[in-house]
């Protein structure tokens, strides 16, 4: 079989997320170099603060300031930082219980090496030079042997609180379509369309995905179909898609290629949109250098009889 196809696939998404009152206060506080926790009814202080008590599920909103200094409760040495992590030089991941808090915050600790880190060591916040109201306003922690600084006395109320964050994410993949779809795409390179036949029901699926969805059996027998086909159903698109260089209205159709038992999708051209009809006989039109048909146009043959494609609707 031909070598399987591969292509880079990047998934990027900047999620815009709104903050509730507790997270808004905490992240605004970081922007102002103040660390806030939330007090539970039984007197614990949770840092970072959450909106609901993890033990009782009671709603929380009593914000209290804690110190920017604290104690490492556990750590792990990261000698090879990865993209997006807080430091690009080797660092320790740490859980830090800030002075005044009862729970620990995850962040990075800037230290010269693993021998300089231990559970129980004292650390303090190193603030980012530019702060926007995000967890990354804490650039990292750093070793600290001084006294706990006095609190600023902040009550957790801000006039210009941040109300949202943009959470950027990017993941990199190498996409491979697998055996059946690789064969389909390879055939398209020669302007041929191949499907696969189910060993049980004998239906030919285009594009093939390696399994018969009716019988639940693996397929492998390749069958060339088309190039001509029949419009089984269609719709008229009246809204222009962004970045799409096609004038509206245009027709988007299901096309049953000759020999196929499943209709595929395609655009219909070379005929006014309001003259496209079920049963219209069409053939593919290839653009120079394209990997798939640009659209399908009428062949000029008489329309197909309804009974020849009624099972493919």
């Amino acid at each position, binding site marked *: 079989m031909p070598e*399987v196809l*591969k292509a880079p*696939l990047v*998934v990027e998404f900047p*999620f815009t*997320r709104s*903050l509730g009152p507790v*997270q808004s206060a905490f*992240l605004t506080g970081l922007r102002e170099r103040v660390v806030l926790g939330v007090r539970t009814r039984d007197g614990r202080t*949770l*840092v*970072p603060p*959450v909106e609901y008590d*993890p033990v009782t599920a009671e709603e929380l909103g009593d914000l209290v300031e804690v110190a920017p200094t604290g104690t490492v*409760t*556990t*750590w*792990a*040495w*990261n*000698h090879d930082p*990865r*993209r*997006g*992590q807080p430091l690009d030089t080797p660092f320790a*991941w740490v*859980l830090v*219980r800030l002075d005044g808090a009862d*729970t*620990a*915050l*995850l*962040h990075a600790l800037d230290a010269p090496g693993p021998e300089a880190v231990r*559970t129980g060591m004292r650390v303090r916040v190193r603030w980012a030079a530019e702060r926007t109201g995000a*967890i*990354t306003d804490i650039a990292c922690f750093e070793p600290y042997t001084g006294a706990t600084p006095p609190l600023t006395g902040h009550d957790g109320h801000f006039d210009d609180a941040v109300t949202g*964050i943009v*959470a*950027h*994410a990017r*993941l*990199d*993949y*190498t*996409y*491979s379509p*697998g*055996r*059946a*779809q690789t064969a389909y795409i390879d055939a398209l390179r020669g302007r041929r369309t191949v499907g696969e036949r189910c060993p049980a029901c004998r239906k030919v699926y285009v594009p093939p*995905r*390696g*399994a*018969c*969805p*009716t*019988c*639940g*059996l*693996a397929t492998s027998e390749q069958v060339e179909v088309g190039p001509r086909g029949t419009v089984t159903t269609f719709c008229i698109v009246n809204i222009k898609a962004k970045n799409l260089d096609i004038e509206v209205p245009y027709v988007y159709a299901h096309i049953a290629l000759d020999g196929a038992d499943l209709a595929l999708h395609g655009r219909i051209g070379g005929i006014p949109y309001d003259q496209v009809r079920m049963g219209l006989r069409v053939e593919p039109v290839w653009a120079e250098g394209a990997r798939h048909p640009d659209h399908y146009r009428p062949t000029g043959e008489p329309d197909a009889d309804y009974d020849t494609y009624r099972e493919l609707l």
Partner: protein
Amino acid sequence: MTRDIAVVAFAQTDHRRTSEDLSEVEMLMPVLHEVLDRTGLKTADIGFTCSGSSDYLAGRAFSFTLALDGVGAWPPISESHVETDGAWALYEAWTKLLTGEADTALVYSYGKSSPGSVRDVLTRQLDPYYLAPLWPDSVALAALQAQALIDAGHTDEPALAAFAARSREAARDNPHAQLRGPVPHGDHLVRPLRTGDCPPIGDGAAAVILAAGERARTLCPRPAWIRGVDHRIEAHGLGVRDLTDSPSTRLAAERAGAFERPVDTAELHAPFTAQEVVLRRALRLDDTVCVNPSGGALAANPIMAAGLIRIGEAAARIHRGESDRALAHATSGPCLQQNLVAVLEGDPR
């Protein structure tokens, strides 16, 4: 409980570092065929189908829909999907059979980690406000847990190395495992965890068939009866939890009936060596229990299938008569955040 429900068949792929020559459904098809062949059932005979997988591994939305081609979803079938390990799909199928709505169920799950970087991919399951922007990867979070256990005196690096060696030695008898026999303990990946403390990254799939009552006896000479299943979750904030303990596992085990009588086998989903320390303590397992005779997740950890495989391996031991009462555990999320425990029994001999 009004009905007895059993695992009557189990199949899994060979787990490999990459299966780029196959799409998800192509990887899954042989496993679906095998598990059906073991019972003589056809896809059309199945009363309920449930699957587990993750779009983040595939990098595509609704990726599970393509796998539905493999189960014959036309004419319409009763089907559901969970966006997590297939062990949770099995839980859903078990409850469906308990209602009497179906007598048989096909449960499958699969994951291809090879297209992406699984350490980065798994950061996207973290809280998006306080954790995900820092990109703490799955090995780093497991390493924090390992250090907490070392500080607490529950383990040390040599003990962790012994867990790794025992798992991969056990996997010698498992033809599907990705890592078998001696594996170098290696350098630190994120200290204190070395490469040998971490699971292999790989692609794979698994499937089981459940059946109720007398139907189970007709499909399998020695059904693995599910005596209980329960799953529990802990706070998402890592700094809220005691990482040296797993109260969610303990509670799930208690509710699944695991402590009512001793088990002889335990299949634990502990992708990192240190997590076995936590689970053994939470489940009160002593040296009389055969832990991970399959090699466990340290020998093969196809994400989204590794938990279902624990249930399948435990059931297969009962089918073969090598176990009479087995415990299976599955986990999801960082540092054993979510835990499922199932208790399986064979008929008395």
